[in-house]
């Protein structure tokens, strides 16, 4: 069988409106805005404490409405990647 995807309770979100808009959106849907993703403009790192930290499926809930918000251009639930030191 192929390796399973492991979902986390972190999301990446693209919100063109700026950090204040991103924080408002995060609060509206129960997320915590952890700030811009590195140097990528308009990309923000959201965290949701009420979803499962590690799951083999993408859990649906009220937090899923985030991707339907018109101020949100793009949403990606973060998958935990297996990385090895060489």
């Amino acid at each position, binding site marked *: 069988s*192929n*390796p399973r995807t492991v979902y986390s309770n972190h999301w990446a979100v693209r919100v063109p409106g700026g950090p204040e808009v991103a924080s408002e959106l995060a609060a509206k849907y129960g997320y915590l805005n952890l700030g811009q993703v*590195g*140097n990528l403009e308009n*990309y923000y790192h959201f965290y949701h404490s009420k979803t499962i930290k590690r799951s083999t499926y993408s859990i649906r809930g009220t937090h899923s409405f985030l991707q339907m918000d018109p101020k949100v251009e793009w949403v990606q639930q*973060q998958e935990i990647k*297996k*990385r*090895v030191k*060489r």
Partner: protein
Amino acid sequence: HIRADQNLLYFNDPTWSNMWYLHCENKSSRCRSEMNIMAAWQRGYTGKNVVVSILDDGVERNHPDLVQNYDPFASYDVNGDDQDPSPRYDANNENKHGTRCAGEVAASANNSYCIVGIAYNARIGGIRMLDGDVTDVVEAKSLGIRPDYIDIYSASWGPDDDGKTVDGPGSLARKAFEDGIKKGRKGLGSIFVWASGNGGRERDYCSCDGYTNSIYTISISSTTENGYKPWYLEECASTLATTYSSGAFYERKIVTTDLRQRCTDDHTGTSVSAPMVAGIIALALEANPLLNWRDVQHLLVKTSRSVHLRAPDWRTNGAGRKVSHLYGFGLVDAEAMVVEAKKWRTVPSQHVCVGTSDKRPRFIRADQLIRTTAHTNACADRGGQHVAYVEHVVVQVTISHPRRGDLQINLISPSGTKSQLLGRRTFDYSNEGFKNWEFMTVHCWGEKAEGEWTLEIQDIPSQLRNPETQGKLKEWTLILYGTAEHPYHSASFHHSRSRTLDISASDLEPSKAAVFQGHLEFIEEEDEYIGPCHPECGDRGCDGPSEEQCLNCVHYSLGGVKTGRKCVSACPSGFMADVASRRCRRCHRGCETCFGRGQNQCSSCKRGFYFQMETNSCTISCSAGTYADDSLKHCLKCHQNCRKCIGYPDRCAVCKDGFSLSGSMCVPDCEQGTFYNPAFMKCDKCHSSCQACLGSGKDQCTQCAKDFHLHDWRCVPFCGQGFYSEEIPGLPHKVCRRCEENCVSCEATGKNCVRCKEGYSLLSGSCVTNHTCSNADEMFCEMVKSSKLCERKLFIQFCCRTCLLAG
């Protein structure tokens, strides 16, 4: 090998004498230091004002050998979301990796502690990001930490090297790479150095790692002290260069800083090599801070060398560069890097051209090779996209397949350079195939982009797969990256070079100045080969003494996948001389000599092929109407009556219509009742009893006339004594068959005898001997009767008459 020199630098760091890859330690013995790091230092380059950051599990910032060069602005803790990249300590020292990598780059020199880093005056930081859940966000954050401040990011990790994983950066990390090369270093582009895969034992292939497979990263592999392939090494076409690393137990190891303020020689794998190259690039950036991210890759391609590195697939590409799938362009040369960097002129801007996009699906059949070609003008008609000279080549494919590990993919450039984009991976049983996966090769670096590119896909099923299931190539796209003009062969390129070192002792810290003071030399910067060229080299000179290092040729240039590229006086067998371009062009497969490259332009054939005079082609077998003459290696015509002949023109096997085979000859068909007489070359009459025959005699009938019976190749009016007449389906006449043994006359069916020979009596349609059995008593006869033995022909002689007479 470089003879030890007493004037070389000496440091008081305790393991300095063990750092064989940096310098020669024993003055009386020959040693190995082809990376020429010491020579780069002697030119005054030590990484000053260059910032390197290690993306890993943390860096021990208070390690005595790192504290002096540690830079907090080049550091961050992504896992803990703070500024301190110190590793998490545990009983297993699990997080030692980053500290070990950092020491190789910038451990302080001459501080009586542990080692000397390659760029021992560079600033070193750490980004702690592996000690926790690694997600796309984590990677993107890490790759985008202060891109205007950090010059070089070094990463010695990647997707699992288990030989069955296909994984790479997510969308955010990819964006971080793109932003980094576009905007980092104030527009010059961040430098990303990556350790190639460590899955050699698992037969992994590093093109399944999207990080090393990216054009934005410099993928580095390793070699052992003696130039052997380390057990952990993977091969692929995206590896750019190589450094030394630890190898077999009998070969010397790499020494570096370890966790808890220690020193170690336990660091191994390609993790050793990426930081080494990061340090060497730091030296180059000190020599020329204006190098952009592509300049650095060009420098590595230009200065790396194959030296003693052992690989079975060293080839010279169309640009004259030696390259292999194990080592890329070879062992890095720090001195050559800094010398070239000093005089480097920025390469022309990068152009991107989609050479071809083919959406026609093709089945990939087991044990077969599919080959699809595309001719491209490399966007010559689109100014902003024209790629005349190749840098990276990317092939994006979508393939469905029941077992991905059975696939092998190659790409052949117009110059004939063959890049193995994917090798078979024994452990990859996935049925997911490849979805828009991008395979990258650097093997065509410097070649002309225009021409025919060939993609080959081979399916070699393993034993565990149903060989009837097929894969499908759904789509492939060829993307060319490069420049519209030659990157550095221009008239204005050769600047006057500085002939003195461009540092003074006052620029250095006092302690280091004291070290350098006694060792400074004014070195003539002579970096071009000045020895004699091979006689076949033309007027442009050469890079070395062999015919493979000529810049142009007097007579012809011979190039190919297997032979490499070299100058020759005459083209060998299998090639034709293209006088106009002064190149040897390969003849069509099977041709020994030819007057063109086409299938119908052969003059003579290779062994095992036959020359077809009518079509000027070489084939394995001869066409209908011809036979293979082994002595002449030609296909010669058969006799005009033969459709197929063997060995000789008149040794027919199959005749044309209107002819019949007579022996080994094809003779004209004759009318019924006649036969072809070769002596008179006409049809003669058969014997009157024959309807068809081979001759005129009465015993040469093949078919009998009406109402005649065939008996021993003769046609007779009736069957003789002891024979009966039988009709055979399909034959126009009857045949005489023998009656059963001892029978003189039998029924028409032949089953029952009617009259027996003398001495035999007729019994139930069979002839039994007249003799009686002396031992046929009542019980015996009862057995014969009860077993009905007399009804069987086989047992009818078994005293049946005796028993019958006895009742």
